[in-house]
C-alpha cells in the first residue's frame, strides 16, 4: 500500500464529510473561504455538550470501580489475578451487554494488530526487501511464549457464569437482564497472562532484564480487563487496539492488592494502605521526613541499600495494598532493584503532593539528581495552566532506556547514563539530562491530559499528546530558557515547518490509527499550533484564561475536539474557526511572502512644488547614458553647443517646466476642495507622510497573522501585528497600506519567528538571501573544526574501515 493512497483516503473522507455537511458551495471560480464557519462541520450541540464547549445539563459518564487481587510470579514472568468490577450505568440507556478492553491481546498471534503489521512502513514503496534482526528475534519469541489474556472465568455477583464473546482486543459480556439507568452490575473475573519481555516486544509495559546482573524490573499496565468507554458521542468504544491509538477509559475507584517477592519495592497508582506491613520502620520514618522536604528529594531507599537488595533474592512474598480514587486506570511496578526518593510539593491551591522516583542503580547518577525534581516542576507549571494537581502522589519510574508512558499518578520513563565498557564508569551528558527532564515532564504532565481531562485517545491522539506537548514545552522553557524543546531548538516554530511542507502528511484531525508521522502530527504540530495561538494570535491573557477554562470544565470529564475548539472561542471572545480549520483540518503550511513594497509621498498638486520633484525622480531613475558621458569626457560638443543659434524655447525649458495650464489646473483643484476634505488634505500636507503599499502573498495556504517589523532611516524600529482576518476575502494576495512619518528602509515579516513560517527567504524587503544550512557552515568561522574533522576522518579511515551492518541472509525462494 502506498502512502499517497492512504493519505488521500483520509483527506478525501474529510473533504467529502465537509461537502455533505456544508450547504455552502463555491460554484463559480475557485475561491476557498478559509474563514467559513466550522459550526456546520462540528457535531450539533446538545444537552450533553453545549455550543459554548462546556458539559451540558444532561452530561453523564459511566463509572467502573475495581477490586483486584494479583500475584506477580517473578520466575515465570506471569500475572494471575481475580477481580470484581462494579459498573454503574449513569447513561439514560438500558444496556443489554457491556464491553471490556483486553489490550494484552494485541500480542496474540492472531490479533488484528499483528495480522495487519506492514512489511514496509509508508509512505512510498520499497525498492528492496529486507528483514531486521530485531524482527527475526521478535517473530521467534512470539512462538516461544503464548501472550495475551487468558480469561479463566466471568461471573456475576452471585458467581453465576456469564456468557462472553471475545473480539480481538475486546470482550462483550452479555447481561442476564438489561442494566437499567442508574443501576449497578457486578462482574467477577479471573485471568492471567505472561508478561512480555519489553526488550523483545516493546509496547507500554512488561519486564526488563538486566543481563549483566541477571536482575529484573517489572512494570505493569493494560493488565486488567478494563471497562470500555460508553459515551454520548459514540456509544460503546469499538475501535480495536492496534498499537498506535491509546486508550479510552472510564473513571472509577480502585482497591488493588499486589503480591510480589518480599524484597521488592512496589510503586503504584494510588495511596499505599498497609505501609506497616511492607515497609521497614526506617523506610516509614524517611517517608515521613520526605513529606517535610520541599527543596530537594531525599532517599527512602538509598542506592547502596538497593544494590545490596538486588543481590539477595527471596522466595517469600508480601502483599501491597493500594487504593486510588477517581482515576481512569491503574499501573504499577515491582523490583528489588529500586532506589526510591521523594520530596513534597506544596501547591498554592490544593493539597500537598509527594513527588517520587523509583529507579535501578543503572539510572544513577542521573535519576537521583533530576527525576523527582522534574516531577515537582511539572506539577508547579501544569497546575498554573490548568488546575491544582488533585492526587496525593506523582511518580516517575525508570523502566527502559528511552521514551516514556503515562498512567494516573505513575509514569514509566527512560534515559540513563552511559557506561564506558572498559572502565565501567557511568557518566551522562547535558543531552541525557535534558532527555530525562523532558520525558519526565511529558509523562507526569499526562496526569492532566488525558488522565484527568479524559479525552478519547483511541480516536484523537492530539487531544492529549498535542496539548501535553504544548505544556511540556512551556514547562521545559521554565526549567531552562535554552531548553531544546523540539529538534534541538528552543523554538518549536522554527522546526515544525519542514514537517508541514511535506506532501506526505495527514491533517491533525485524523484518527489515531491512520496518522502517519505520528510524533510530528499528533505531538509537535498541535503543540506548535497552540504556541502560535498563545503567543501570536490570541495573546497570553486571552489564551491562558480560555485554556484554563477548558481544563477546569472538563476535569474528570470526557471532552471531544469540538468541546476544546468551542471553549477556546467562547472563553476568549475570539472567532478561531479559521485557525482550527487551517491547522487541524488541513495539511496547509505557513508561508507568507512579502512580495513588494511601493513608497509614495502625498502630492501637493502644486506644479511649482511637484515639477522639480518629478525632475528629481527622473534624474534619479535615469542615469545619463554612457555614450553621452564618454562623448563629453572626450571633449565632443553637441550640434547645438557648436551652433547656439539653433537653440529655441525647448532647449531652455525641459518637459517639467510649469506652464499656465498647470497653474490653472491647480487653482481649479483648490477651488474644488470642500470640507472636510480640504482640512484633511491641508493637514496631510503639513505632516507630509511616507505612504507604503506592501504586497503579501499566501503561498503555503494557511492564513496567518502578519507580525511586521519596520526599520526607519534613523535606525528606529516599530513592530505591528496584522491579524489573520486580513485574509478573509482574499486568502492568496493582499495589499496593506502603511502611513509613516519617517522613511522606511526595511520591512521584515515574522522577525521573531512566531508564526511557523516555513520559508523565510521571502520574508523581508529588501529581499534577503537566505543561505542554506550548509552554506552557513561552509562560510562560518568553523575552518578549524572542519580541519579537525577532516584529520579525524583520515585517521579513522586509515585505522579501520567501517563495516556495514551484518549481511542480510534473505534470498529469492526457488520457484
Amino acid at each position, binding site marked *: 500500500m502506498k502512502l499517497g493512497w492512504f493519505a488521500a483516503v483520509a483527506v478525501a473522507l474529510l473533504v467529502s464529510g465537509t461537502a455533505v455537511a456544508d450547504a455552502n458551495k463555491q460554484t463559480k471560480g475557485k475561491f476557498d473561504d478559509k474563514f467559513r464557519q466550522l459550526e456546520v462541520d462540528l457535531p450539533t450541540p446538545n444537552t450533553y455538550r453545549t455550543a459554548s464547549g462546556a458539559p451540558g445539563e444532561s452530561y453523564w459518564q459511566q463509572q467502573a470501580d475495581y477490586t483486584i487481587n494479583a500475584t506477580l510470579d517473578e520466575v515465570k514472568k506471569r500475572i494471575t489475578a481475580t477481580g470484581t468490577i462494579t459498573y454503574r450505568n449513569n447513561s439514560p440507556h438500558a444496556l443489554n451487554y457491556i464491553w471490556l478492553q483486553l489490550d494484552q491481546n494485541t500480542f496474540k498471534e492472531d490479533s488484528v494488530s499483528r495480522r495487519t503489521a506492514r512489511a*514496509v512502513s509508508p509512505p512510498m514503496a520499497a525498492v528492496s526487501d*529486507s*528483514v531486521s534482526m530485531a524482527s527475526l528475534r521478535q517473530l521467534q519469541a512470539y512462538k516461544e511464549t503464548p501472550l495475551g489474556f487468558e480469561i479463566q472465568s466471568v461471573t456475576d455477583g452471585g458467581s453465576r457464569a456469564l456468557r462472553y464473546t471475545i473480539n480481538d482486543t475486546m470482550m462483550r459480556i452479555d447481561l442476564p437482564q438489561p442494566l437499567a439507568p442508574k443501576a449497578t452490575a457486578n462482574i467477577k473475573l479471573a485471568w492471567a497472562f505472561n508478561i512480555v519481555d519489553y526488550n523483545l516486544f516493546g509496547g507500554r509495559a512488561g519486564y526488563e532484564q538486566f543481563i549483566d546482573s541477571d536482575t529484573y524490573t517489572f512494570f505493569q499496565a493494560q493488565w486488567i480487563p478494563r471497562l470500555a468507554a460508553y459515551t454520548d458521542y459514540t456509544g460503546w468504544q469499538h475501535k480495536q487496539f492496534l498499537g498506535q491509538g491509546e486508550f479510552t477509559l472510564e473513571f472509577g475507584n480502585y482497591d488493588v492488592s499486589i503480591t510480589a517477592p518480599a524484597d521488592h519495592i512496589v510503586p503504584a497508582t494510588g495511596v499505599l494502605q498497609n505501609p506497616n506491613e511492607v515497609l521497614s520502620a526506617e523506610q516509614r520514618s524517611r517517608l515521613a521526613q520526605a513529606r517535610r522536604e520541599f527543596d530537594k528529594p531525599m532517599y527512602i531507599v538509598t542506592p547502596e541499600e538497593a544494590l545490596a537488595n538486588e543481590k539477595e533474592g527471596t522466595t517469600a512474598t508480601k502483599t501491597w495494598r493500594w487504593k486510588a480514587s477517581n482515576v481512569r486506570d491503574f499501573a504499577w511496578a515491582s523490583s528489588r532493584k529500586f532506589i526510591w526518593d521523594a520530596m513534597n510539593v506544596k501547591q498554592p491551591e490544593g493539597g500537598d503532593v509527594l513527588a517520587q522516583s523509583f529507579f535501578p542503580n543503572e539510572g544513577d547518577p542521573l535519576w537521583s539528581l533530576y527525576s523527582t525534581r522534574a516531577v515537582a516542576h511539572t506539577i508547579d507549571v501544569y497546575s498554573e495552566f490548568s488546575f491544582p494537581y488533585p492526587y496525593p502522589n506523582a511518580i516517575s519510574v525508570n523502566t527502559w532506556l528511552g521514551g516514556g508512558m503515562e498512567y494516573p499518578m505513575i509514569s514509566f520513563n527512560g534515559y540513563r547514563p552511559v557506561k564506558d565498557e572498559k572502565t565501567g564508569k557511568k*557518566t551522562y551528558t547535558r*543531552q541525557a539530562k535534558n532527555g530525562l527532564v523532558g520525558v519526565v515532564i511529558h509523562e507526569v504532565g499526562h496526569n492532566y491530559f488525558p488522565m484527568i481531562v479524559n479525552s478519547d485517545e483511541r480516536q484523537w491522539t492530539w487531544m492529549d499528546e498535542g496539548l501535553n506537548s504544548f505544556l511540556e514545552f512551556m514547562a521545559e522553557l521554565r526549567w531552562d530558557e535554552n531548553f531544546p524543546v523540539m529538534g534541538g531548538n528552543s523554538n518549536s516554530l522554527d522546526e515544525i515547518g519542514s514537517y508541514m511542507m511535506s506532501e506526505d502528511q495527514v491533517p491533525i484531525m485524523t484518527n489515531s490509527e491512520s496518522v502517519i508521522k*505520528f510524533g510530528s502530527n499528533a505531538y509537535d504540530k498541535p503543540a506548535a499550533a497552540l504556541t502560535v495561538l498563545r503567543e501570536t494570535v490570541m495573546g497570553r491573557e486571552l489564551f491562558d484564561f480560555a485554556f484554563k477554562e477548558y481544563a477546569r470544565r472538563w476535569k474528570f470529564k470526557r471532552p471531544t475536539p469540538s468541546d476544546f475548539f468551542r471553549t477556546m472561542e467562547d472563553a476568549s471572545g475570539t472567532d478561531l474557526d479559521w485557525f482550527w480549520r487551517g491547522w487541524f483540518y488541513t495539511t496547509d503550511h505557513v508561508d507568507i511572502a512579502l512580495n513588494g513594497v511601493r513608497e509614495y509621498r502625498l502630492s501637493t498638486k502644486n506644479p511649482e512644488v511637484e515639477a522639480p520633484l518629478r525632475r528629481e525622480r527622473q534624474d534619479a531613475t535615469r542615469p545619463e547614458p554612457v555614450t553621452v558621458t564618454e562623448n563629453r569626457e572626450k571633449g565632443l560638443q553637441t550640434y547645438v553647443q557648436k551652433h547656439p543659434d539653433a537653440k529655441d524655447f525647448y532647449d531652455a525649458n525641459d518637459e517639467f517646466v510649469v506652464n499656465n495650464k498647470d497653474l490653472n489646473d491647480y487653482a481649479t483643484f483648490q477651488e474644488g476642495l470642500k470640507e472636510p476634505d480640504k482640512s484633511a488634505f491641508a493637514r496631510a500636507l503639513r505632516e507630509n507622510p511616507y505612504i507604503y503599499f506592501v504586497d503579501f502573498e499566501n503561498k503555503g495556504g494557511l492564513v496567518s497573522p502578519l507580525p511586521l517589523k519596520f526599520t526607519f532611516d534613523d535606525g528606529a524600529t516599530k513592530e505591528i501585528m496584522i491579524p489573520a482576518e486580513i485574509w478573509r476575502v482574499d486568502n492568496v494576495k493582499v495589499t496593506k497600506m502603511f502611513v509613516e512619518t519617517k522613511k522606511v528602509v526595511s520591512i521584515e515579516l515574522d522577525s521573531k519567528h512566531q508564526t511557523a513560517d516555513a520559508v523565510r527567504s521571502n520574508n523581508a524587503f529588501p529581499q534577503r538571501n537566505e543561505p542554506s544550512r550548509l552554506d552557513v557552515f561552509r562560510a562560518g568561522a568553523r575552518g578549524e573544526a572542519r580541519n579537525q574533522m577532516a584529520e579525524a*576522518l583520515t585517521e579513522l579511515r586509515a585505522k579501520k574501515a567501517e563495516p556495514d551492518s551484518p549481511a542480510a541472509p534473505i534470498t529469492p525462494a526457488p520457484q
Partner: protein
Amino acid sequence: MSKQGGSITRRLAILAGCALAVAPPALAHRSQTVLTTVMWNPAVSMLEVTHRVHNADAEAWLSQQGQGGGAAAMDITVVRNQAQMMLYVEAHFGLNDGGAKIALEPLGAEIEGEALLLYQQCKLVAPPKALAIDNRILRDVFDGQTNLVNVRLAQRTRTLIFSGSDGVKKAEGLL
C-alpha cells in the same frame, strides 16, 4: 526501546507476500528518530544532506563502540567522536540517482542544541528527478528507531519513513 543488536538489509532481494516487520507499538513519548534533509542548492549546484541525530542517541551509539577512554569517548561534542559518527552514517545512508550511487562527501558536523548535525554534499549538474534512498542509521542500535527523510529539491517536499525492516525506498516526482 533500546538495545544492542544487528540489523539486516538485503540488496534487492524479492520476498513475496509476507509481513516481516512487527514494529513495537509506539510509546506515548516519541521514540528515537534521525531526521535527514536532502536539499538542492542551485547557487552552488550542490545536493546537500543534513542528518539530525539526537545527541543522547549518538552518545548511546558511541558507548557501544568499546573504545574506552571514559566520558570523553562518549562525548559527542568531541570532534573525533563526530567523525566516527560520520563514518557510521556514510555506511548506513546512501542515495542512488536512477542506477548510479551519489558519492556524498562529508562536509562536517556541529552541535545545535540537543542534536548533532552531520553534513554531506555532492556536486551535481542538475537535481535528480528521483532518488532511491537507503537509511539504516541507528536502526541496528535501537529497535524502535524511526528515521524520516525530507527531500526538497524544488517546490515539492516528499517524506520517506524508515523503520522496522524497511530497505531501500524510492522518492519520485521530486521536481
